[in-house]
């Protein structure tokens, strides 16, 4: 038996190109469906994990899938905005803590997410370097964004204007990077986070501008009115927030009417969750409350339906591939007819030839298996990234 494998190995080495092609074909045929399943499993894990951690989500009435993907996975499609008063409404019930999220803008291709600092506690996000945003204009980077952009604490990056044709002039704001978050293996790694108020400054709802007369005059009478002349806001609007001009930044209008994308509601208990959901049963309301886990499960079912179709197609491809391999072996036997005759003439039994062929097939299968395992092992750490790229984003 040992000699069979020795002869088979020598034969395969002799025809190394053919052997290599066969091994690669077989290993890839095996690795493809297994790898795809691993990516789908990773996608399911990450989607379910994030959805499970997000009990309730409030957003504009419409597509629950868009709302979930926009607020949880920061998808590029975005979601229609709602008003900040929705967060106040949830807080006023006393049944849940609201976490408003504003995910409208992107910065250098990455989602720019306006949150309150509670979001970091909620998702367990801590800075690996630097600190969380403290002052207007500060931002903190997700681990992958920091790596991709090569930025760290002390660096700056400019927000992109929401609309190139925006005549109201929402200027790009120079954001100060105060920290980089530790890797969370979630969509948070791909986002740039700012305080909600900074997001509203980018939106143009707040701004800082120079005054024509920095020192207002003292009125003649101590009981007279203040006389402060301010510059036209359009003349010089700051595009960077510094300690010197911070005091001039202000907001216009009622903050309760300011836009946000969604509110994550964290109910205090099951009863509170039920009561809160009852508040959003009115179909005529402009907002709706969803359970991201339900939406995600529905989405995953669709993904796995597509996955099952892929499985069927792959099975067919595998069967065809194996038939082709069998054909290659059959043709190879014909080509090796003279070689087999020589083996017989040397006094070997027909079984010996069969054993030699079996050893060849086994060695090829083992080599293909090893290559397949190596490919899967190498690709495994990237399964999550691939899942996030192809499924979550």
């Amino acid at each position, binding site marked *: 038996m040992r000699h069979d494998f020795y002869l088979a190995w020598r034969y395969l080495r002799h025809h190394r190109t053919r052997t290599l092609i066969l091994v690669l074909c077989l290993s890839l045929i095996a690795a493809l469906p297994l790898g795809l399943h691993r990516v789908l499993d990773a996608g399911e894990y990450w989607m379910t994990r994030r959805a499970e951690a997000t009990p309730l989500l409030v957003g504009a009435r419409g597509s629950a899938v868009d709302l979930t993907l926009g607020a949880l996975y920061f998808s590029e499609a975005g979601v229609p905005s709602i008003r900040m008063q929705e967060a106040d409404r949830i807080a006023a019930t006393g049944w849940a803590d609201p976490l408003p999220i504003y995910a409208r803008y992107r910065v250098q291709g990455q989602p720019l997410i306006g949150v309150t600092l*509670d979001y970091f506690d909620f998702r367990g996000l801590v800075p690996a370097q630097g600190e969380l*945003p403290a*002052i207007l204009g500060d931002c903190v980077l997700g681990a992958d964004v920091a790596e991709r952009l090569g930025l760290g604490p002390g660096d700056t990056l400019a927000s992109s204007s929401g609309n190139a044709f925006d005549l109201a002039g929402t200027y790009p704001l120079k954001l100060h990077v105060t920290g980089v978050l530790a890797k969370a293996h979630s969509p948070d790694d791909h986002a740039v986070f700012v305080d909600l108020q900074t997001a509203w400054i980018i939106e143009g709802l707040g701004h800082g501008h120079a005054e024509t007369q920095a020192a207002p005059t*003292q009125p003649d009478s*101590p009981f007279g009115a*203040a006389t402060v002349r301010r510059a036209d806001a359009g003349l010089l609007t700051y595009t960077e927030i510094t300690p010197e001009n911070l005091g001039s930044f202000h907001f216009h209008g009622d903050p309760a009417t300011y836009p946000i994308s969604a509110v994550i509601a964290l109910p205090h208990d099951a009863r509170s969750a039920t009561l809160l959901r009852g508040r959003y049963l009115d179909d005529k309301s402009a907002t709706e409350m969803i359970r991201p886990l339900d939406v995600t499960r529905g989405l995953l079912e669709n993904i796995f339906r597509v996955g099952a179709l892929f499985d069927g197609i792959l099975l067919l491809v595998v069967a065809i591939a194996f038939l082709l391999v069998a054909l290659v072996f059959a043709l190879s036997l014909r080509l090796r007819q003279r070689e087999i005759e020589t083996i017989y003439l040397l006094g070997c039994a027909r079984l010996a030839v069969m054993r030699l062929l079996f050893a060849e097939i086994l060695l090829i299968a083992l080599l293909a298996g090893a290559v397949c395992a190596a490919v899967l092992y190498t690709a495994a750490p990237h399964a999550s990234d691939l899942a996030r790229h192809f499924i979550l984003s």
Partner: protein
Amino acid sequence: MPTFRILSLVIALVAAASAGGASAIGEHKLEIVASNYPLAYFAERLAGPWATVILPAPADVDPAYWRPDAKAVGAMQKADLILLNGADYEKWRAHVALPRLKTVDTSAGFRDRFIRIENAVVHSHGPAGQHSHEGIAYTTWLDFDQAAQQAEAVAKALIAKRPELKTAVLDALRSLQADLSGLDGEIKRIAAVKPNLPLMASHPVYQYLARRYGLNLKSVHWEPGEMPPEKEWTELDKTLAGHPAKTMLWEARPAAAIADKLGAKGVASAVFDPCANRPEAGDFLVIMKQNVENLRTSFQR
């Protein structure tokens, strides 16, 4: 004898368990940041030994005009509870990032009763720079009924953070509210003796005090350590002609020269310290009791 031993053992175990519990609470002291001294005082009274209360504004600065830098904001972010006065007191609030769920606006319960100041005067506080009192009057705690509501908001926040302290916090709240109610009743009684007695105030910070206790109060914009210019004395004379006040309330003792010049016009100076920052001696209650006594003297004049 065995019964005595068992009883001793049980008592020793209970004592050890309670000591362990106390130390467990002590190890996890709540860190509370308050934006002014009245709130810090309320938190200290309510949370007792289970909390460390921090007033980040420096001792020599009026917390209403203090602006936190990034370091101070970072420290606030790490606190368990951030107590805000509200009523536009924390003008820095829109410029910093604070965790919303840890932040308590203690005056939110009476937001509909805020006093709005129109056409306020811009004036200076020496090195602190110029400012105006335009907007919402913010010394809400000088109405002791409102102060009691703010104390209640602090208590609710504490209980929400540490439900196990509910009984202790509620007991402390009752005691604090009794003290505030005592001050409230005392000023009501003082003011009732001479309703509509004309009074002057050196600074427009007594709006809630005047509203709650029906004080007939008019304000100038003077600083205790800065002699007002001559034209402001002239304006004061004009005001006194129609509003014959015999007392001017000050946030702090005025310079002798100012007090003397006022005295020459028949206007005595009385300190009613809003106590926005931690006092050098005593505490909020001591200062407020002294304020009440000073007010009583003014009404007896």
